[in-house]
């Protein structure tokens, strides 16, 4: 079975001389939920825009489910749904018409298009807004409208470029569930996001891009296993007078009711709690200081830049 996405030696140099992509290779398997991460300006959006034929590549090849963009462009396009980073629908068009028109561009007859538009508007909680002009929607609704529009032709590969930017946590989580559901139904998903918790929760495989190069391409589990130390924030039940000196633990004073502890992967948390208990320190609650993926991501980007 062909790869959902196969990129070879993809390069892009803009007219102003900016070398946005410096020969990237990337494979995404069918059915995957794949994260493409990178700092701002790393080349994520350029890569996505080339896949979606919105930007002309300078070199290399891209194929979607075996359809090469140079040789079999229209077949490749039929396989792809795109949710771009910025709103790009006609704000003066009614919501349902936006979906019906999009379906029409893919050759779906108008009667069938109305049905599909209804299906996706219902699923994404926009049915009540179907007759409203798109400009009347809230930010979260506009994001969901773009997802519905990208799905109306039922693509095999869905690319979402920061789909939950500016969306409140409740809607974000409902969108996560929706994306998980369509992924389970067989749709391959590529996600870029700045919410690394989102990538960690949803994605099975990951690539990190920086300065136009792929600097990491592995499984999410494999990547997270590279994390040697985690930092925990400990909320205490009683105020501390001074920082306890616990041999074998790296503790930092944040304030009289809060400590930070760096815990190595091979050290049991039980040992930390036993030692704290011995000093009479009771922990009310504990949380990761940063998302694990975020910690790794920063480390890799810094390492890449140091090179």
């Amino acid at each position, binding site marked *: 079975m062909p790869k959902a996405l196969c990129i070879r030696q993809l390069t892009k140099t*803009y*007219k102003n001389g900016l070398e946005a992509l410096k020969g990237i290779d990337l494979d995404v398997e069918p059915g995957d939920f794949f994260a493409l991460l990178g700092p701002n300006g790393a080349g994520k959006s350029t890569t996505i*825009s080339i896949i*979606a*034929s*919105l*930007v*002309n590549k300078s070199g290399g090849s891209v194929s979607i489910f075996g359809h090469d963009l140079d040789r079999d*462009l*229209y*077949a490749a*396009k*039929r396989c*792809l749904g*795109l949710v*771009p980073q*910025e*709103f*790009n*629908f*006609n*704000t*003066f*068009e009614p919501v349902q*018409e*936006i979906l019906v*028109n*999009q379906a*029409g*561009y*893919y*050759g*779906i*007859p*108008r009667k069938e298009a109305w049905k599909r538009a209804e299906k996706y508007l219902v699923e994404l909680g926009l049915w009540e807004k179907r007759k409203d002009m798109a400009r009347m929607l809230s930010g979260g609704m506009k994001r969901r409208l773009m997802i519905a*529009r990208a799905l109306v*032709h039922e693509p095999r590969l869905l690319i979402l470029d920061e789909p939950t930017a500016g969306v409140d946590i409740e809607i974000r989580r409902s969108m996560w569930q929706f994306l998980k559901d369509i992924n389970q139904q067989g749709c391959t998903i590529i996600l870029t996001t700045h919410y690394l918790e989102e990538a960690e929760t949803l994605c099975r495989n990951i690539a990190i891009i920086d300065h136009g190069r792929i600097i990491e391409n592995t499984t999410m589990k494999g990547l997270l296993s590279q994390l040697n130390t985690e930092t925990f924030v400990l909320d205490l039940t009683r105020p501390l007078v001074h920082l306890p000196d616990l041999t074998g633990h790296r503790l930092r004073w944040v304030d009289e009711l809060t400590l930070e502890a760096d815990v190595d992967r091979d050290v049991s948390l039980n040992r930390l709690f036993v030692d704290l208990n011995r000093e009479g320190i009771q922990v009310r609650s504990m949380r990761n200081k940063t998302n694990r993926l975020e910690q790794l991501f920063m480390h890799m980007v810094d390492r890449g830049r140091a090179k």
Partner: protein
Amino acid sequence: MTNAHSNWIAFKTIIIKEVLRFSRIWIQTILPPVITMGLYFVIFGGLIGARIGEMDGIRYMDFIIPGLIMMAVITNAYANVVSSFYSSKFQRHLEEMLVSPVPNYLIILGFMGGGICRGLAVGVAVTLVSLFFSPLSIHNPAVALSVVVLTAALFSLAGLINGVFARSFDDISIIPTFILTPLTYLGGVFYSISLLPEFWQGVSMFNPILYMVNAFRYGFLGVTDFSLWLSYGIIIGFILALYGIALYLLNKGIGIRQ
């Protein structure tokens, strides 16, 4: 589903989208040219025309009606496509088409179809207003209809090319204001070129709108300053040239892809 069937649906979709767009804002798109042309009928045809008498042996009001209809068709076909295409670039919803499997030639034909529909809608509305001033008589309906459709197609394509190059809303008004309007006014809408001195008659021959207005007037009144075939040849020649340019621009991604 065959590609041809799929493309046909995509083509219809663009046309429907365009027609709904200008219909939704009919107060901005259909009504103003009807009022403007109504005023031309009253002032030039009724008040001044009564003193002018005849032009080429035809009552002045009857002489200007085809020209004014054509003027409305030209400006509205052009305006529809240039504003729609540029807005879709500006708001980035042109990307809806660019990511989809709609071939570039269909995008061009779809926008052109939208421009023709708006041109014809305005043309019919202006014709209905003209009935208050003169009874409708069409000498050759096939010529009148074919010329008006082809002319609308030509200016729709010109509008699209303007939309491709436009980088601001100012850019979409420069050509209509400084090129299209003067060419239309000097295109024999209000006078027969036989009234002009020989030199200016020669200069007028380079104005393509002159041939369109004359051919359309032939369809209405059966009189023209030029051979009908010359007019058709010029209109179709321009259409093919503009279509070729538009297709080249879209294929190259000029103005729409980086």
